[in-house]
């Protein structure tokens, strides 16, 4: 039942005796809004001009903040609104899964502002912090542009649309939606794709964190302490004070900070520092053992408490970093575009700007992994369909902002230091002296285009000492560089003397994210794997989640899958990050291709082919990027880029009894031969699975266009009984409806708070 109220505002009721459950407002824009958004657009344009055109010798990091925030506001207000009106067309008279299936547990209408934070905490991880740091080798401009433009047209669109589609399907997962909408072949390829991609993601994140912890007793001690801290929290919550989550999280954070401080003491202790100095190989095996244990131990003991800690640290640290950047306003050291944007021999990762920049900055601009969150938990918590814009599109904008901050941290440290940290040992030689000679040889230029004076080893030694590390040479993987940049920025709070604290604080915060991803990812992959096994004849028992033996077997296989890639990566003579990070980026972007394919297909089936370009264009771009990157990784003649060319070169050399640098021995040669074969094969598998998904989607789309639309798996409408505003602040019309609910003496939603 609809009613015109005034000025084009319409309200809708599903029950004539109750207040309205939906408000429709005219799309017109008022004079005041025009002035405000005009001002924001102008400020954004000035900031972009400062970054891209004016440049100059002293670019302040503050322009990154303005360029990003103003672009996000304009995109959220106009582009996301366009998608909402023309494509998504939310119907607030329809109950969301949270309302329809409310059970007080996983299905539960949740206040939109809380859910915004919850969804953000679930999508944000180490990815957006690491990718931009590596991409900084090409200069600040290309990476920053892709982070901001990519999120507006690709990443946020994907998250928003997948969330919407899943809301309409009772919170079904991406894999299930792929099967329902693309048919069994496309669906199976999508599920297999998700599973294999997950393994490479976990392995590469493992390499990232090992890069930060290897030979660092301070880091190893403080990260190791998170395990007893989490166990203590778990026991406290289970037996001492069930439900005292905030209390135990505060205790946990205090203990965490204490363990960072204690790490400094361990670092200076003659015997303890030796005990905690571990090689990358040892750390890899410890991480594998940890991953297996964490995935088979009960959730309450380790995973749940660490999740609380990591959410606490995530929201807190990101807010702190934003404040730090505003307070410190660092000056950018890196030029807008460096020599490595034009050549394909960058020290952090090989390959030219197109396509490799776009796969390196995976998470901050477009992350396929988010489709798993948007289609899993969040639809079961959202109050109204129209809130998907704020939750899906909005949270992704914040994630992009985190990536911009990581970029700022990376480009505001000294360039020589940046390249000494991010080039592999094969290039720097591993010592401060050889690394100084290497970076001097790069002939680096400052932002004004003038050569920067060469450094000697003492600069790198002093930098290492300032953060309490023995060496900062070849600390690849992005995490140490980010921590170094962050310690520089955060030293506005507490000065130089706290730099080593902030450095290890940042390492700890990244390690927490990564450990959470490692065990949650292992659990999810195990679950998917057992489910897939259960479909095979005779193995039906694997489908039963309470069958412990089956869970152990599946976990073992999953851990063996990522563990073998991890061990391979840390021992890779060419550098694990250098060889495997591209595969990680390609995998994540291919997952995005699967998600965008599913939503594009649904639009075509719904008869909205006219608007299919909105997810279709980013899909096309993503396919061009990932397929050309995969093509180069598989077929390139350049041994730095093509896995198989490199493989052949090393096989030929090995058979001739020669040792090719950077390999130092015959054993190294064998490793390279083996690794390049595995990496090449994985590239082929990923790309083929995605092509199968895309091809089956094309078949479905052609059928749908020929017959003017096809039925989709959308669930039936159930009338909604609740009301809540659609965005952060209620509009005037929404306030009137809320007042009607109050006058009727009814609660508009079961969430308790509403404004």
């Amino acid at each position, binding site marked *: 039942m609809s009613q015109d109220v005034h000025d084009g505002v319409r309200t809708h009721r599903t029950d004539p005796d109750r207040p309205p459950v939906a408000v429709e407002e005219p799309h017109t824009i008022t004079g005041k809004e025009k002035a405000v958004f005009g001002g924001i657009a102008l400020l954004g344009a000035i900031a972009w001009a400062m970054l891209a055109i004016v440049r100059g010798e002293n670019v302040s990091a503050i322009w990154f903040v303005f360029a990003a925030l103003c672009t996000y506001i304009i995109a959220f207000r106009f582009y996301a609104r366009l998608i909402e009106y023309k494509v998504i067309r939310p119907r607030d008279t329809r109950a969301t899964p949270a309302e329809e299936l409310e059970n007080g547990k996983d299905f539960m209408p949740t206040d939109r502002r809380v859910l915004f934070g*919850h969804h953000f905490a679930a999508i*944000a991880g180490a990815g957006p912090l690491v990718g931009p740091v590596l991409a900084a080798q090409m200069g600040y401009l290309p990476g920053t542009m892709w982070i901001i433009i990519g999120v507006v047209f690709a990443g946020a669109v994907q998250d928003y649309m997948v969330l919407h589609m899943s809301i309409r399907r009772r919170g079904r997962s991406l894999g299930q939606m792929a099967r329902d909408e693309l048919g069994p072949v496309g669906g199976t390829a999508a599920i297999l794709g998700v599973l294999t991609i997950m393994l490479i993601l976990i392995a590469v994140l493992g390499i990232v964190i090992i890069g930060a912890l290897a030979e660092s007793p301070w880091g190893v001690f403080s990260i190791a302490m998170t395990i007893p801290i989490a166990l203590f929290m778990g026991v406290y919550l289970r037996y001492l004070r069930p439900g005292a989550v*905030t209390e135990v999280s505060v205790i946990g954070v205090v203990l965490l900070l204490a363990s960072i401080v204690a790490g400094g003491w361990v670092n200076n202790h003659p015997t303890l520092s030796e005990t905690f100095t571990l090689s990358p190989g040892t750390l890899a095996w410890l991480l594998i053992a940890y991953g297996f244990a964490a995935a088979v131990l009960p959730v309450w003991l380790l995973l749940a408490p660490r999740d609380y800690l990591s959410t606490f640290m995530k929201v807190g640290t990101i807010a702190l970093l934003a404040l730090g950047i505003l307070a410190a306003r660092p000056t950018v050291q890196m030029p807008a575009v460096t020599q490595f944007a034009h050549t394909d021999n960058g020290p952090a990762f090989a390959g030219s700007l197109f396509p490799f920049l776009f796969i390196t900055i995976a998470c901050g601009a477009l992350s396929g992994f988010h489709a798993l969150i948007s289609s899993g938990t969040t639809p079961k918590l959202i109050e109204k369909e129209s809130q998907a814009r704020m939750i899906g599109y909005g949270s992704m904008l914040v994630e992009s902002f985190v990536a911009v901050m990581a970029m700022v941290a990376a480009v505001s440290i000294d360039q020589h230091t940046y390249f000494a940290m991010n080039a592999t040992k094969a290039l720097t030689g591993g010592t401060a002296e050889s690394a100084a000679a290497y970076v001097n040889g790069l002939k680096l230029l400052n932002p004004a285009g003038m050569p920067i004076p060469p450094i000697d080893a003492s600069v790198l030694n002093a930098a290492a000492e300032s953060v309490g590390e023995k060496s900062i040479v070849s600390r690849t993987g992005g995490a140490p560089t980010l921590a170094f940049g962050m310690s520089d920025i955060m030293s506005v709070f507490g000065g130089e003397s706290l730099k080593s604290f902030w450095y290890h604080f940042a390492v700890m915060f990244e390690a927490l994210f990564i450990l959470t991803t490692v065990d949650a990812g292992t659990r999810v992959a*195990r679950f998917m794997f057992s489910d897939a096994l259960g479909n095979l004849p005779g193995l039906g028992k694997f489908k039963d989640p309470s069958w412990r033996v089956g869970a152990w077997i599946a976990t073992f296989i999953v851990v063996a899958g990522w563990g073998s890639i991890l061990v391979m990566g840390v021992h890779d003579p060419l550098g694990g990050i250098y060889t495997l990070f591209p595969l990680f980026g390609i995998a994540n972007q291919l997952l995005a291709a699967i998600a965008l394919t599913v939503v594009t297909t649904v639009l075509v089936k719904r008869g909205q082919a006219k608007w299919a370009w909105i997810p279709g264009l980013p899909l096309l771009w993503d396919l061009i990027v990932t397929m050309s990157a995969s093509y180069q990784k598989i077929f390139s003649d350049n041994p730095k880029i093509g896995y198989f060319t490199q493989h052949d070169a090393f096989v030929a050399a090995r058979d001739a009894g020669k040792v090719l640098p950077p390999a130092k021995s015959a054993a190294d040669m064998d490793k390279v031969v083996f690794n390049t074969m595995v990496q090449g094969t994985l590239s082929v598998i990923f790309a083929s699975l995605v092509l199968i998904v895309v091809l089956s989607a094309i078949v479905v789309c052609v059928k749908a266009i020929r017959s003017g639309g096809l039925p989709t798996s959308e669930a039936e409408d159930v009338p909604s009984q609740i009301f809540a505003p659609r965005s952060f602040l209620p509009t005037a019309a929404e306030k009137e409806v809320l007042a009607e609910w109050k006058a009727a003496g009814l609660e508009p939603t079961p969430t308790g708070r509403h404004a």
Partner: protein
Amino acid sequence: MAQAARDLRWWFRGVTGADAYERYAAHMARTHPGSPVLSERDFWRQKHADQDANPGARCC
């Protein structure tokens, strides 16, 4: 000021999921009045058992 602190606490508890039991109890009181309600301890046990059986993804 006190109101702002309360709002922040409410928001943070919601984001971390600390308020899960209160919301469950409110849900039971509203939709199934009179039916038995799990104790706080049992509720959390149940919740963790559910998580064990059906893990949720976390992002990279």
